[in-house]
């Protein structure tokens, strides 16, 4: 029943998209300055129906309708309601439907919120966005249909992959999708702008909020993904330079660059083609990321089952997108005359963009290089943290310094008579850095530089905030985001420097001592749960200085639906540090292998990222106020 209803809705949506494209192109011939009402109406209907379509699938998951293949493959009647619902987008088919929803709703909202812009520009944006929608609807219907039926109807489902049964992962895809699928709308807008020669600075007005929205959600999406990796994967890290993580980071770099160059374009009318390129690039990178994840071309922590035919479809779609956008860009490209003074805000923002492009290219190369070696030479290699750490971290130091100075430089030309202030701030940062090192005793030149430069950014942002507060001329959005970025880098740096990691093979009743701590394996239990059995260890961590005791209970879980072995980390979070403990059976003896980590300031890393996104949201409200 649900299967027929869902399929019907998909067909109607295809029909509506075609209707919108047809009637939009037809209304170009009418000389009226307004877009006819019918287009608004069809667009509203389209959004409504696709949302109903999604709720139909959710309903299928809630009532465990195993006649739907997707529900059968990814759900189980015993699963908690929350995970039944999140299971809707925790699989390939359902998440594609989420893709289309975001494409459709953004298309509708863009139509509504851009009434002050030229009709042709809006029409073409709508048409291109609907071509994207059509592409994905066809993909869903003919290759990855969430409503495909199975018969005879199975009595029980196969269950959701256990490592995906996690609250963070339930909200991770929607957030991330709002980010990178959201970037589709300024892809369409950029194409429309090229087609209709709409290169006035008002073009920036029409897309800047969309860039901000997608950037904020992308930031949060990446954060939630990291938190999940930290809690669930049991390696104790939060960023692994895993190909799929990189896939979410690539559009983020492009968005961040766009966010900044858009300011220049809006204020000074410069960099038009660069802005367009970034708009196109962001969504192209998003689709590339989807291709890399879904085609199974890369192996990673994301366990979407692979299927080459999916890959071919997305690759085809991607190729069409790339070639049409490059073709259009080349056709319309005119050389722009940049007459920039080196001491101007424009230059600093351009430098920001160079940095972003540097990060982007580094990460892109690191991500796709293994595919190249595999295809061309047959060697399976993986590029891990060492590559990224060596290439990226030293550059971050300079980046942070420029990030601190840039925002205060004036448009057109700056005289730089506040050099003395900067030197003072730098001196202060160095002093604080040495205090930290002196107190906790650890040393490496690079980590010192990282701490100093992040302090430099934090302090100058704070002074900035204080000054602008006095003048009542505030740009808190930027200050919060920049200062929080400084905090993020500083906390990551401190976390890295002062982390303690100990590896032991331990037997029941045994105690291991290190530094001021002792760990005792007090108890081992085997428990049977509804869909897994678990070996649960009880380990006592004692701080011999303060006599504080903590009991941590890591688990080894053996899931049945589907069969998987997972190691559950036990984590004790506090404001100053996290204790992180995993236990496994893999070692060359009869013992249990435990890995204990003390990770200082973990929670502050999460908080900093939330603050970065918060700055973005704040800017969004400011923009609304000015408009």
């Amino acid at each position, binding site marked *: 029943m649900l299967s027929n209803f869902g399929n019907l809705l998909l067909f109607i949506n295809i029909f509506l998209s075609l209707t919108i494209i047809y009637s939009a192109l037809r209304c170009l011939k009418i000389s009226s300055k307004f877009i006819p009402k019918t287009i608004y109406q069809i667009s509203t209907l389209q959004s409504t129906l696709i949302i109903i379509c999604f709720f139909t699938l959710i309903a299928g998951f809630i009532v465990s309708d195993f006649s739907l293949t997707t529900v059968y493959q990814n759900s189980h009647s015993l699963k908690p309601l929350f995970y039944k619902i999140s299971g809707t987008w925790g699989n390939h088919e359902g998440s594609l439907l989420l893709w289309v929803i975001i494409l459709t709703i953004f298309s509708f909202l863009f139509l509504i919120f851009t009434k002050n812009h030229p009709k042709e520009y809006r029409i073409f944006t709508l048409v291109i966005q609907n071509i994207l929608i059509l592409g994905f609807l066809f993909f869903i219907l003919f290759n990855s249909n969430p409503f495909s039926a199975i018969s005879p109807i199975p009595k029980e489902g196969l269950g959701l992959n256990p490592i995906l049964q996690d609250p963070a992962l339930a909200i991770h895809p929607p957030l991330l999708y709002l980010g990178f699928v959201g970037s589709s709308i300024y892809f369409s807008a950029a194409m429309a702008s090229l087609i209709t020669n709409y290169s006035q600075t008002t073009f920036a007005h029409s897309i800047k909020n969309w860039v901000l929205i997608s950037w904020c959600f992308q930031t949060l999406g990446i954060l939630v993904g990291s938190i999940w990796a930290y809690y669930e994967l049991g390696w104790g890290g939060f960023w692994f330079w895993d190909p799929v993580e990189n896939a979410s980071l690539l559009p983020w770099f492009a968005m961040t660059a766009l966010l900044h160059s858009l300011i220049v374009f809006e204020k000074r009318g410069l960099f038009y083609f660069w802005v367009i390129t970034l708009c196109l690039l962001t969504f192209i990178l998003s689709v590339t990321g989807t291709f890399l994840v879904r085609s199974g071309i890369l192996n990673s922590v994301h366990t979407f089952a692979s299927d080459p035919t999916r890959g071919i479809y997305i690759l085809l779609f991607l190729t069409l997108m790339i070639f049409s956008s490059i073709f259009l860009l080349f056709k319309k490209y005119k050389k722009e005359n940049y007459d920039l003074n080196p001491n101007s805000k424009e230059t600093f923002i351009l430098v920001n963009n160079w940095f972003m492009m540097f990060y982007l290219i580094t990460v892109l190369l690191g991500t796709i290089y293994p595919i190249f070696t595999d*295809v061309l030479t047959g060697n399976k290699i993986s590029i891990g943290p060492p590559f990224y750490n060596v290439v990226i971290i030293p550059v971050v130091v300079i980046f942070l310094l420029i990030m601190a100075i840039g925002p205060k430089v004036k448009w057109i030309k700056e005289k730089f008579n506040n050099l003395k202030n900067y030197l003072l701030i730098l001196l202060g940062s160095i002093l604080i850095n040495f205090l930290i090192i002196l107190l906790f005793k650890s040393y490496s030149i690079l980590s010192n530089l990282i701490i100093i430069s992040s302090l430099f950014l934090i302090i100058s942002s704070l002074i900035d905030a204080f000054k602008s507060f006095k003048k009542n001329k505030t740009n808190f959005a930027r200050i919060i985001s920049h200062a929080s970025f400084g905090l993020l880098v500083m906390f990551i740096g401190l976390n890295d420097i002062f982390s303690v990691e100990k590896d032991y093979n331990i037997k029941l009743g045994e105690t291991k001592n290190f530094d001021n701590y002792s760990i005792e394996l007090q108890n081992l239990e085997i428990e049977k749960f509804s869909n897994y059995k678990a*070996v649960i260890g009880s380990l006592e961590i004692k701080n011999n200085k303060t006599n504080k005791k903590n009991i941590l209970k890591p688990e080894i879980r053996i899931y049945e639906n589907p069969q998987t072995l997972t190691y559950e980390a036990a984590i004790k979070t506090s404001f100053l540090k996290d204790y992180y403990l995993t236990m496994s059976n893999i070692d060359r003896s009869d013992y249990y292998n435990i890995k204990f980590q003390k990770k200082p300031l973990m929670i502050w890393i999460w908080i900093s990222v939330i603050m970065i996104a918060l700055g973005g949201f704040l800017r969004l409200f400011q923009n609304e106020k000015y408009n």
Partner: protein
Amino acid sequence: MKNIIKISIFIIIIFIVAVFFMGLNKDTNYNTNVLTGKKISNISLEYFDENKFYKEEDLKKNNYTLINFWAAWCAPCRKEHPLLMQLSKEKNLKLLGVNFKDKKKQAEIFLNDLGNPYDFLTKDELGKSSVKFGIYGIPESILINKDLMILKKFVGPLSTEDYDSIVEIIN
């Protein structure tokens, strides 16, 4: 000059797309679940004691074979061992042990203490042959039939339920 840039951008993109396309058709079997229902092939496992190899033809002689990956250093392997001893009494089933990344001496002590359930014992010192079976943690067991079709995979130590299901399949 401008045209050269344009053309080279096109060539680079075509190259990348082509590599992606070729990459799609390479098989990657890291996901073990998809292996159920598939046939195994190109099997060659070195015997534990001799410098001979256990091959596909040998597998075809058995009605059912349970391939069990184990090591002396693996605690859960000890847990499932009594069940393997039970299974070794089944007439319709042969047990093929693969000693995974282990020291020979340790493995011998293990079998002396707990008994040897295996009809055939092989070793995989580097853990490379096991990758072909899609193994990435032990213990793991694979039940195959005469046609080398994978009937069932067991990740983690065998439970009594697993035991029952194996007995049901082979009888």
